[in-house]
């Protein structure tokens, strides 16, 4: 379809309504009169009233509304899906990821790669884990599928950098061990439901 055809295509019956606007002056004299009228009635200052008020507040009362990005940042909502975080177990500090590979499997963008091995502690060890943020579409599936609540979305939304690799490796995403106490549970997409305790049955054990 050419542009011309596109513009003239049949889009059905439209119900447009004309706004009731005053006439635009047609003659030079008419325009002159309009300028004089607007100037004398100080219409400009009506428009600037709010600006001036806020300027006064900012200049003399220290009440500033502008966020001084990048020196200041707005908090993001808990369900915001930005750069992933890898959580640790609160008790032992061990990373939570068990290397099940479900996130790798589910990722629709094929952004995740994981390498695992049999560790000396007889556990499945995550040797390397990476998310290609050039591909990730921040859909949150990985966080949802993760059976361990190990991978979640964080609030880190600044993904422009010279080297994407600089924040896409396991260690970059993992909660630093010295900041384990500050680790917060992710309440958003894929986290346990608030009534989980009620719905989970305890497995009887005998030793």
């Amino acid at each position, binding site marked *: 379809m050419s542009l011309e055809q596109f513009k003239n295509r049949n889009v059905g019956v439209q119900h447009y309504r004309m706004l009731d606007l005053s006439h635009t002056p047609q003659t030079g004299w008419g325009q002159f009169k309009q300028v004089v009228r607007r100037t004398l009635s100080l219409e400009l200052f009506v428009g600037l009233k709010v600006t001036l008020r806020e300027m006064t507040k900012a200049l003399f009362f220290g009440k500033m509304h502008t966020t001084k990005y990048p020196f200041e940042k707005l908090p993001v909502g808990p369900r915001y899906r930005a750069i992933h975080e890898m959580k640790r177990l609160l008790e032992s500090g061990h990373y939570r990821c*068990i*290397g*099940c*590979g*479900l996130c*790798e*499997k589910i990722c629709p963008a094929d952004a995740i*790669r*994981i*390498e*695992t*091995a*049999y*560790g000396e502690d*007889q*556990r*499945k*060890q995550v040797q*390397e884990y*990476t998310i290609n943020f050039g591909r990730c579409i921040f859909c949150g599936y990985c966080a949802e599928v993760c*059976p*361990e609540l190990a991978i979640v979305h964080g609030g880190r939304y600044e993904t422009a950098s010279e080297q994407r690799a600089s924040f896409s490796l396991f260690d970059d995403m993992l909660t630093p061990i010295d900041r384990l106490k500050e680790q917060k549970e992710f309440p958003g997409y894929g986290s346990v439901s608030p009534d989980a305790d009620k719905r989970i*049955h305890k*497995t*009887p*054990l*005998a*030793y």
Partner: protein
Amino acid sequence: MSIREPNKTITVTIDGQECRGEWGQTILQVARANDIYIPTMCYLSKVEPIASCRMCVVEVEGVEGMILSCQEKAVDGAVITTNSDDLYRERQNITRLYDVNHPLECGVCDKSGECDLQSKTVEFGVDQQTFAARDQHRPVQDWGFISYDPSLCILCEKCVRVCNEVVGDEALQISVGGYKSTIINTKLDQQCAECGECMAVCPVGALVSTDFKYTANAWEMEKIPASCAHCSSGCQLYYEVKHTSIDNPDPRIYRVTNEHEFSSLCGAGRFAFDYANEGVQQDARAFDQAVTALRQADTIRFSGVITNEEALLLERLREALAVRLVCDDAYGYQRFLAAYRSISGSTLYEASLKTVADSQAVVVFGTRIYDDNPMVKYHMAMASKHHKARIVYLHPMEDARIQNLVTQYIKYEAGSEEGVAALLAATLLAGKTVSDPLAGVLDNLDIGNLSAESNVGEEELDTLKRSLWKKEGFTLIVGADLYNHPEAENIARFIAAIERYSDFKVLIVPPATNARGVAEICTLSEAVEGYTVGYNAPGDFVLSALGDGDLDMPALNQQEGTLTTVDQRVVPTHPALPYEGYTLNQLANALGVGSRYTIDQTPHLPRDKGYKAIAFDDLPDYFDALGGEHRGYLLSPGEVETRDVFSEIEELPAYDGLVVYRCNEGSAFGPFDARSVHRKHEAVLKGSEQFAVAARLKGGERIRFELDGESYERVFRIDTTLKGTVAIHPVWDRGLSAFALSSYRFSQLKFETTGNE
């Protein structure tokens, strides 16, 4: 499973559907053949029904209670229900019991995604555990190449059965103790066959490969159907590939699996998959040199580890360039087959792996079968276990590893095979009507003398003869010791005569992966002459898939094509890994005889040799619901003109003193197998204590000796399972020169000691 049952058809009604089956089939088999699903947990088609899980229960009209469909034979006219509320509840309860205390570790388990317990748990909706059993401390056991996790084990017994009934190794046992029951490996210190069959049939993650463990998940790997390239059985397998690592997207083979329900693999097939010629780029200069070399070549020497298509290309090159083809792996075999055919009159021998397994008497002659072809040995084990078959093993060296299967061991002197063949023929054909020339030879045999020279007692032959009484299904397996014997052709005639005039079927085991294909397709010469181009063999210009030649070639797991197996079957194989370099077909193209792709040759394999004009992509490659093999096709039989000529037996050669036997001990199949990091073999000269005394050698001493113009320096080890004065001399570690040996396998040993290891 007995072979005497008539092939009568029966009709039963399963879930309202009329189903046809054969008399003697179980309900489960009839159901499966008719595409009706009955859940099972412990059923394994290739062994006798285990009946430990009770999952396969069905209801039969007029019969009280539930019936195990895996065991119960279908009776004509029976009305069977495979699914009802009662049956569902029964199966659900079984699943519940399996799930009690089962570790919740699907997240990391290697079996996850293809685990029978997982599937059944979902199928029967077991989503919680309401009771518990007292938990035990059950640490993971390291069996070397396999690790066993008793807490994941559901005690289905498949592993035990497969080890006993199929592999014949009897390494695994079930230690019964109620909830404490586990599987124990009784051969941990003597080393079991290390075939990994137990691991393959384990329905859960209790038995897993130690090298593979936790490196990849079942669902990530692409399964590439292929045929094993290590010996002439060409077993069905899947190479499972996935990217190498995060920064290397090139595919890597992580493990080998197979249709374990119906077919098996040995350790080489399962673990020696990492022999590809990797990282090869097209080297145009080397290619031009190779073309020039081929143009000026007098001989092309090659190994038997090659596809049929490549063999055909070589044959075309032979015609176009007027060169000699030399294949040390196949030459003796080709001659042996020709001599065999001159008596049998048929291009095909009558036995197959299946006839071995169905036999009630198996005679093995001239092969250390455990190492030459593990799959033949598996089928001997099946014959032994399923039909209580007599297994008579004739060889100069007893093999302790198959002692449990062999019912009679007949030792003969190295070199006396011709006499033994004649004695066998005389024994097995006594009282049968045979052709005049044969009768002449047999009547003229100086039995006493032959018996004395070969050391095969007449009583032993009598015992052999008597043990065949009232048996049905006889197989005679002959192997690589015979093909390069100086009197190979006469031996072949005696063997053929046994097949022709008795009930024995003969299996002539090819000595290398595709020795049979080469023997059919190529016109071979005995020895090299002049300028030689070697293809996976030594030469003046070497094309090598080991990566050590003048031009690189793809290994068999990087190629597509077909192989001709011991079953006289043409099976397809597919490339698991990419290969960027040049192929034989490209060389052939440069010389005017190739085709667009190597597999374009497949339909042109020689029709007069039994090959069919079927395009590669049309070859079937699957097993049906009851395990019927539909891989490629069987060679068509052809007739050969017979020439009833036997030679008189001259003096038998004597091998006095110290003798070595060239054999790849431990089923190590040569240079490709040797590249694998997953298999641990030691290339040492192994002899008995008696040998050590006779040779005045101590274990650990290093000796140097020369055989077939090759010089070897080997550490000597005493192996207490061996007897006599024959030592085992492996050559799998010798690179391409291992493919250039065509001498008789026994030789006298002269050596000098060169110190200690």
